[in-house]
């Protein structure tokens, strides 16, 4: 655990300014098998301390990889000087942030830093199973990955914190020849989530069923078809609706992007979706259970609470830092987070999800005469206009209420606040995902989730 060299430096914080001191350690462990060859075998650690000072409406920041009493003082001094430089040349004539209650949040625990051998041996067992059982594959890739962020935070006003977020996953990617001989591929995140690798992955055999399912789907895909291009009725599976919540809606309601001109600016308190759509960025608890990646305090010292973004189809809020919350007269909910010790906090999502509804998935599929059921995605991108795009890596045709042939890779797109208005059925079960990294100047682990949605989107076809 990170030793506390910060609390006893509070006496150095300047009055009339907001100051944050943060010591942070990020660990990454990764092992990659490609066709049985270990092509990745890496352990990394990044550790250091940073200070940020808010003065006259602008920030100064400094960081260093050394963590000693002296370097803590050094970064504090440098951050103050940087704030003073910018305040002198581009200050906004503002005082400190609106004060909030002081407090403490301690959720850190001693992390079991799993030996590299454990990652390698586990994926070797999986690789052996795949190689033996599925010799017809053109290639197979199996990845074990684990990362963690431990943060010790000390602020001039707000909640001091000591937290840790570890997560671990296994990815399996398979490639086989399609009908035309060209490669067709599919990947799956197998198990994992919050916690260390040894907690999630005890017996390789426990992963075999998921691997078999992945292979079955790949076989279906290899014989699949391209969807017909155009505007279609689709059922978006939970993985895709979670991606929608994050990419297409979530980013547009980050308050810094609202200030940058996102579509959500003029839409506050207006209808942006059907009455069936409610969307929340959860902090640490969702629907009575811990979120995939719980956040209890952000890196500005704001105690984390849920951010209600869309309620019954009406856009009701943004995600904020302390600064933007004041601009929009909203309460900050703890969304300002930094990825590395050397990164400044930015407005980031935590666990963003569309809430489940009341429909049964089988009824939703049965209700579609001619459309598609879209299940997996390999990435998604969205614009500040709300226009979004996802790569769809697996799905089925729906013909007269029945699932048909599998789909080859395609793309769907739409405009979020138009598309959400077409949502007319929402399933009663939701799926969470947490293995991805959101990119916005800095990477950030995020959770996203959702139920199945029936809606209309534009599908790419070929």
């Amino acid at each position: 655990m990170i030793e506390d060299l910060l609390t006893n430096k509070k006496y150095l914080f300047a009055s009339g300014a907001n100051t944050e001191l943060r010591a942070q350690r990020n660990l990454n462990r990764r092992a990659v098998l490609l066709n049985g060859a270990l092509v990745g075998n890496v352990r990394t650690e990044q550790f250091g301390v940073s200070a940020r000072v808010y003065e006259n409406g602008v920030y100064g920041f400094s960081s260093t990889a050394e963590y000693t009493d002296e370097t803590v003082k050094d970064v504090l001094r440098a951050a103050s000087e940087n704030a003073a430089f910018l305040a002198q040349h581009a200050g906004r004539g503002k005082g400190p942030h609106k004060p909030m209650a002081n407090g403490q949040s301690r959720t850190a625990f001693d992390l079991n830093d799993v030996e590299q051998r454990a990652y390698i041996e586990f994926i070797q067992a999986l690789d052996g199973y795949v190689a033996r059982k599925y010799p017809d594959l053109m290639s197979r890739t199996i990845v074990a990955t684990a990362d963690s962020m431990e943060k010790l935070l000390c602020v001039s006003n707000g909640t001091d914190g000591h937290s840790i977020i570890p997560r671990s996953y296994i990815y399996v990617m398979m490639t086989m020849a399609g009908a035309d001989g060209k490669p067709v591929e599919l990947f799956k995140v197998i198990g994992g989530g919050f916690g260390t690798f040894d907690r999630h992955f005890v017996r390789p055999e426990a992963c075999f069923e998921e691997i078999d399912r992945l292979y079955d789907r790949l076989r279906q895909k290899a014989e699949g078809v391209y969807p017909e291009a155009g505007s279609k009725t689709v059922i978006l599976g939970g993985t895709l609706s979670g991606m929608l919540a994050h990419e297409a809606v979530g980013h547009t309601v980050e308050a810094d992007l609202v200030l940058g001109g996102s579509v959500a600016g003029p839409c506050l308190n207006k209808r942006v979706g059907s009455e069936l759509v409610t969307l929340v960025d959860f902090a640490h608890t969702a629907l009575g259970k811990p979120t995939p990646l719980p956040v209890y305090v952000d890196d500005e010292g704001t105690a984390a609470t849920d951010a209600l973004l869309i309620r019954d189809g009406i856009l009701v809020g943004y995600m904020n830092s302390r600064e933007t919350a004041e601009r929009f007269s909203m309460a900050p909910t703890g969304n300002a987070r930094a990825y590395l010790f050397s990164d400044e906090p930015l407005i980031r999502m935590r666990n963003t999800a569309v809430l489940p509804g009341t429909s049964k998935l089988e009824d939703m599929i049965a209700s579609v005469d001619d459309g598609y059921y879209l299940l997996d995605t390999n990435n998604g991108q969205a614009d500040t206009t709300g226009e979004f795009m996802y790569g769809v890596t697996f799905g089925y045709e729906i013909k007269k209420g029945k699932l048909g042939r599998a789909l080859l890779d395609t793309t769907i797109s739409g405009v979020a606040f138009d598309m959400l208005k077409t949502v007319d059925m929402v399933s009663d079960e939701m799926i969470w995902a947490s293995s991805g990294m959101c990119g916005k100047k800095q990477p950030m682990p995020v959770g996203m989730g959702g139920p199945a949605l029936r809606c209309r989107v534009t599908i790419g076809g070929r």
Partner: protein
Amino acid sequence: MIETIKKTAQSAVTALKNAGADKAAANVSYTITHEFNVDGGEFSLFRTLFDKSLSMTAIQGGRKGTVAQNRYDEKTIADSAKACLEAAASAQPDENWDFAPESGNQDFVLGEPKPDTDRLFDRCRELMAAVGERFPKIIMEQMIVSHKEIYSAKANSYGVLFSTHEGYYEVSLMFSGHEGEKASSFFGSGVVTDSLDKPFLALGSIEKDLADVEKQIETTGVSGKFEGTMVVMPGCLGSLFYSLLSDFAGEGGLLSGTSPWKEKLGEQVADERITLSLAPLDERIVCGNRYTGEGFRSENFDIIRDGRLNAFYLGLYGANKLKLPRGKNDSFNLVVAPGDRSIEQIIASVDRGILVGRFSGGQPASNGDFSGVAKNSFLIENGKIGPALSETMISGNMADMLCRLRAVSSEQVADGMSVLPYMAFDGITISGK
């Protein structure tokens, strides 16, 4: 400082050898960053960062492990050497792992190592003022302008010892056009430069990009679906070719056996007017790598020369494993040879198509199929650039596309990282709602 960094790299190699490595390599760096941020059109942040990095790789009995830290005191080096050997011990042996032999060590000084922070800030203010005056519909969502000073060294147990002391400025802009409640898509533009002699607006394609985005506030959709010509702007070409080269000519696609080009070295894979190089030593590239991550001296090389597949983008491991020549550098400083027609002439030759500024698409499949949304794009009809487009999808196949070249422009844009022309490809599926 650079001597300290070099000694640290050598110490790390020695520590790995002492811990039992047959072969060892280390990279060490110290980076000082000065960075200004603008958010929502206003200056928001000034930061200074002092970062270290140490990466140590051991090969022992053909088993390889790598450990990376951001400290390099004596204890960290000793602990990392032990951890590195432990990681290697867990791997299975593979005789193809190796490092570069010593072939003439050298110390390099590149770019402008020391920052002029006051002048950098003045250039930032000048750009913000110019945007406000000349492009009043633009909101600068984010501007990040920085100077990086980097001391780095690479050493290995064959006696390789390279070092670099370099410095460069980076300008990264994210902006959109607005008029009332109407807005364009966001667009990113940027450059790397080692000089503050010119206003930022005059660098790369920044000025043209700002002008284009102001024209993208009003958009129209394409009705239906047609096959037409895709003219790709230089700023978009790099990301398309990155996917193509990774999947077709890179280690991943070749080792997995999924690359459609795996048996095509020396064969025609593209129109003969296409020559595509990775050229960190090109004079228009700022602070291009002088040596590779494996310790080889960098050389420029052509991946595609006159349409023929000339080389793969392989590291030493992939080259040994596949018994193919390795790539002569590991940068992605892409240089595409210019053509003999101006962009105006190319546009004039297109009956119906699309001028694409940004491609928002899924990762292209390993067979080269791609589909996605054409962002910051314009319709081309009857030889003229038409309205800006929204909700327009494009799809095709990367390999087929290279063989259906219409033209390469004589103009190139150099942004310090790449040198790229406009390229026009026929046979692309363009569809609207």
